[in-house]
Structure formats: structure tokens, C-alpha cells
């Protein structure tokens, strides 16, 4: 697995997909994010690492405004997606362009086919042939097609955990999002499913902007081109994954990477 380090692509050449400027977030009186400044490169994989409660998931959930559902949440600063402030956009429209995959696989209580087509069907009429095409394309992309092509009309909840997670990835791909957010997508999976999903992250980041929150530092080195390290709501250090892991500049980063706190 260590060999995959060589696949890291340069982030200097990449355009910026998301720009975060002076971003603060409070839950009531508690400040969960402090003056975050960060750029997420387009069509690259970016990993957020840091100990529990450091704010990495909060920031990820801000990108599709899932944080709106938390009461007493308050933000300052801007987050721009393609030059547009996401807080000025319609949240439900934003979420069509920003797909999300969660820690626990959560297919809808429908058949595999309906799971995939649910998103596209909300936006326009889909013919039978077009539906079949979308299903095959998304499931193939999510490396699930061969396993489920004979049971597309069976419930998605009948699949194994790893298959369900890939179904969720396929479902997220079906609306053709530009950005894929993944919140610890492998922490509930077995090692084989984990490596399949990691493989997918790498492949998908060729034409999608992937942002992944992970507790697993090896996972960050395997899949991410860029890594950002958070601690107590602050962005401590960010940079190309190889530099951050090979030559961390901040003392805190060094301590975290060497396992002195977690």
C-alpha cells in the first residue's frame, strides 16, 4: 500500500474548487471552527485529519450546509464554491452539486435501481433506457455493477455493509456532482471493503473534487493529494500530503503524526 504514495498528483497545478476565507463557526457559545483559511483543489482528493472534536467533520458538513440543521449554529466568513458564496445559494440546489457519503452506509429503503435513480428522477423525466444506462454507469464507477447487476430490483438494504457503502457512492454519483464529501467513509467497513472504497476515492478524484474526513492517517497518505490537519477548531497545517507527512512544519502536526496524542 505504501507504493500508492507515488500516485500523488501536484496540487499546485490544480484550480481551486472551494475557497474558505476567515471562516468561524459557533455551536451556541462553543466555537468549533476558528478563522479557517483553506483552498480545496479541483479534481484532487483532499483529506482532513485531526483528533476527535477538532472540527474536521464540522467543516466538511458546512460544504453542503448540513450544519444548517443543527440548531444554534452561527457562522462568519465566507465559503466559495466556483466563486459563489454557498450561504447565498439555495441549500437544496447546492446539495445537488455536492454529494455526500457518510460513516455508516445509508441506502434508502428502496430497490438498488430506485436508490440510484432517485436523485436524477427528482430533476427530470428519465426514460427506461436512460435509467438503465445511469444505473450501469454509476454502479460500474462504484465497482459494484458485477455484484448486483442481476438483482437491481432487490432492496438496497439487503446488501452487505461494504456493498451498501459502494451503493451510496453510486447514488451520490448519479446526480453528477462536482464535489464528493466523504465523512469517515470506511470506519464502519471491513479491511477488504475499505481498500475497495479507498481505490474508488483515488479513481473518482480524477474527475471529481473529493474531500475526505478520516481518522486513519495511513488512509490519508494512500488517497489524498492534499492534507489539512485540524486541532481544537484551528487549521494547524495544510499542504501536499507527501510534504505534510514527510516534513511537517508545525510542532503539533509532528506530535500528532508520531502518535503522541490522538
Amino acid at each position: 500500500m505504501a507504493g500508492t504514495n507515488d500516485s500523488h498528483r501536484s496540487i499546485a497545478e490544480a484550480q481551486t474548487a472551494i475557497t474558505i476565507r476567515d471562516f468561524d463557526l459557533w455551536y451556541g457559545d462553543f466555537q468549533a471552527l476558528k478563522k479557517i483559511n483553506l483552498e480545496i483543489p479541483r479534481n484532487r482528493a483532499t483529506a482532513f485529519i485531526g483528533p476527535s472534536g477538532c472540527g474536521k467533520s464540522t467543516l466538511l458538513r458546512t460544504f453542503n450546509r448540513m450544519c444548517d440543521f443543527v440548531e444554534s449554529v452561527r457562522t462568519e466568513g465566507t465559503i466559495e464554491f466556483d466563486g459563489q458564496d454557498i450561504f447565498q445559494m439555495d441549500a437544496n440546489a447546492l446539495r445537488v452539486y455536492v454529494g455526500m457519503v457518510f460513516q455508516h452506509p445509508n441506502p434508502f429503503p428502496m430497490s438498488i435501481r430506485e436508490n440510484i435513480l432517485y436523485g436524477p428522477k427528482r430533476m427530470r423525466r428519465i426514460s427506461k433506457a436512460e435509467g438503465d444506462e445511469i444505473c450501469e454507469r454509476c454502479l460500474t464507477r462504484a465497482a459494484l455493477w458485477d455484484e448486483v447487476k442481476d438483482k437491481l430490483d432487490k432492496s438496497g438494504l439487503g446488501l452487505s455493509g461494504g456493498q451498501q457503502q459502494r451503493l451510496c457512492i453510486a447514488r451520490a454519483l448519479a446526480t453528477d456532482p462536482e464535489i464528493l464529501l466523504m465523512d469517515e467513509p470506511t470506519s464502519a467497513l471491513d479491511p477488504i471493503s475499505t481498500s475497495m472504497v479507498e481505490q474508488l476515492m483515488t479513481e473518482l478524484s480524477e474527475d471529481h473534487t473529493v474531500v475526505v474526513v478520516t481518522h486513519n492517517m495511513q488512509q490519508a497518505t494512500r488517497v489524498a493529494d492534499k492534507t489539512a490537519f485540524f486541532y481544537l477548531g484551528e487549521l494547524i497545517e495544510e499542504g501536499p500530503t507527501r510534504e505534510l507527512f514527510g516534513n511537517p512544519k508545525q510542532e503539533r502536526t509532528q506530535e500528532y503524526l508520531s502518535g503522541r496524542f490522538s
Partner: protein
Amino acid sequence: MASEKIVASQGRSAELDAHVRRIDSQDKVATGVLTVIVGLVMLLVVAIIVYILARGAGRALAPGFLTNPYNNEELPGILYQLWDSFYMLIVTLVISVPISLGAAIFLVEYAPDNWVTSAAKTAIETLSSLPSIVVGMFGSLFFVVTLGWGISILAGACALTMFNIPILVRTIQQALEDVPRSQRDAALAMGLTRWETTINVLLPAAMPAIVTGIVLSAGRVFGEAAALIFTAGSAPARLNFANPFNFMSPTCPFNIFRPACSLAVYIWRLTSEPTAGSTEIVWGTATVLLACVLLFNLLARLLGKLLSRRLTAE
């Protein structure tokens, strides 16, 4: 030194042994007591069922008991009461299921967390603990007199709805709340509105529990008597099944403005005004009523299992 240590550890292990013996015997006593309690409860249920079956099964199984009207001279049956019970149940469910579904969805998904919501929740809980005779009195004053529906199936169904709503709202609320948080997240992250989430994700996921709840509540409504005496009446209707579509006729089985007498009310009436041979009929009716309620419970389990199996695969 070494021997002292051994002695010390022997002391500790003797202490530990005593502790283990003590908690073991506690566990045995508790298991025994609980088994006896559960045994008593089961004995009670079985005794009631066996007693009723022993007294009534002969009559209930007699040919014609289920298909003869009450005024058949050879063998008075309970055809009309059976029909009225089921018909009133269906009317009740038609009224109460949509209302309860709406109320539960509102309370779980939409209601802001304020005093109005908590007042509504308290009101629903209070409704569930109202004595049924009081609901019957209210029904007779409001539905029968004020609204002018007269003693009728509709008035009876509305009184039953008042019982059924709190039970149903509670079960549907629980079923919706039990849908895992992760499913809700999936829907929200896809930009689904609350309505889309409720209809396409939450309701299907909660459906097995909701259907089980509806059928179980049907069993309770089916056996209700006190609320119906003043609202749907206790005089057995004369029904004419030969001409079922003359809806205004008092003998039309589908007419919701005619009086009706359910199985439970029939038992009450025959017991309070006994006539020759009525004891037999009472026990036969009780057996049929019991069988119906048991069937409802069985059906609830079966449907729930079937639906959840369909939901999760195969």
C-alpha cells in the same frame, strides 16, 4: 516472604469464591421469582381463554351461528353484529389512520420545539387515558345530538376514532423516530425537502412498524363497548343484504347513518337484559370476539414481519 504472598492470595481467592457464590445465588433467586411472575401472567391469560372457549366454542362453531341473523328462530346467530363490528372498524380506520398519520408526521418532522407542541402532545396523551364511557357521553352529546347524526355508525366510528387517534399517533410517532438518523442524513444531504424525505424515505422505512400498530389498534377498537352504547346504539339492526346499494335505507348494510350493534355491545345488552337461551349466545359471541382479537394480533405480527422482510431484501 513467598509463603506469605501465597497465603494472602489464598485469602483473596476465598473472598472471591464467597462473592461469586453470593451473586450466583442472588441471580438464581431473581430468575426464579421472575419466572414465577411471568408464569402467573401466562396462567391468567390461558385460564381466561380456556374458560371462554369451553363455555362458548360449542355455540360459536354451531353451523349457522356466524351466518344467521339474531332473529332466526331455530338458531339465533350474530351475522348482523359481526358485520356491524367489522364495518364500524373499517369506517373508524378510514377516519383515524389519515388523521393520526398527519398528526404524527407533523409532531415528529415539522413541529417546532415549543409550548404549543408540548401542549398538543399532552392533549393526545390525555385523550388516551379518558374513560371510554366519558368519550361515549361526549359522542352522544356532540355527534348524535349537536351534529344531528342520530344514533349511527358514523357517530360510533367518530367516538372510536377518539380512542384510536392517541394510540395510533403514539405508535406512528415511535416508528418514525426509530428510523435511523443516518437515513435522514442521506435524504437531507441529497437536497430532499422535508416532505420528500418523509414520503419517500421515512414512511417506507417505518411502514412495518406503522402497519403493525394499525392492526393492533384495530384489535382494541374491535372490542370496545362503552363508547358505542350511546353513539351507535345497542339495538340489533335489521339488515337487508339482498339490496345493499340503497344507501339511505335503514336496512342497508353500508348506510353509515343507521344504528348498529357491535359484538361487544351485543354481549353487554344480552347480559343486562337476559332472555331465554341468551347465556349461550353471550358465550358464543364472546368466543367469536376473542378469536377475532387474537387473529388481529396474529395478523399484526405476520404483516409486520412480511413488510420488513420485503424492505430489507428477498
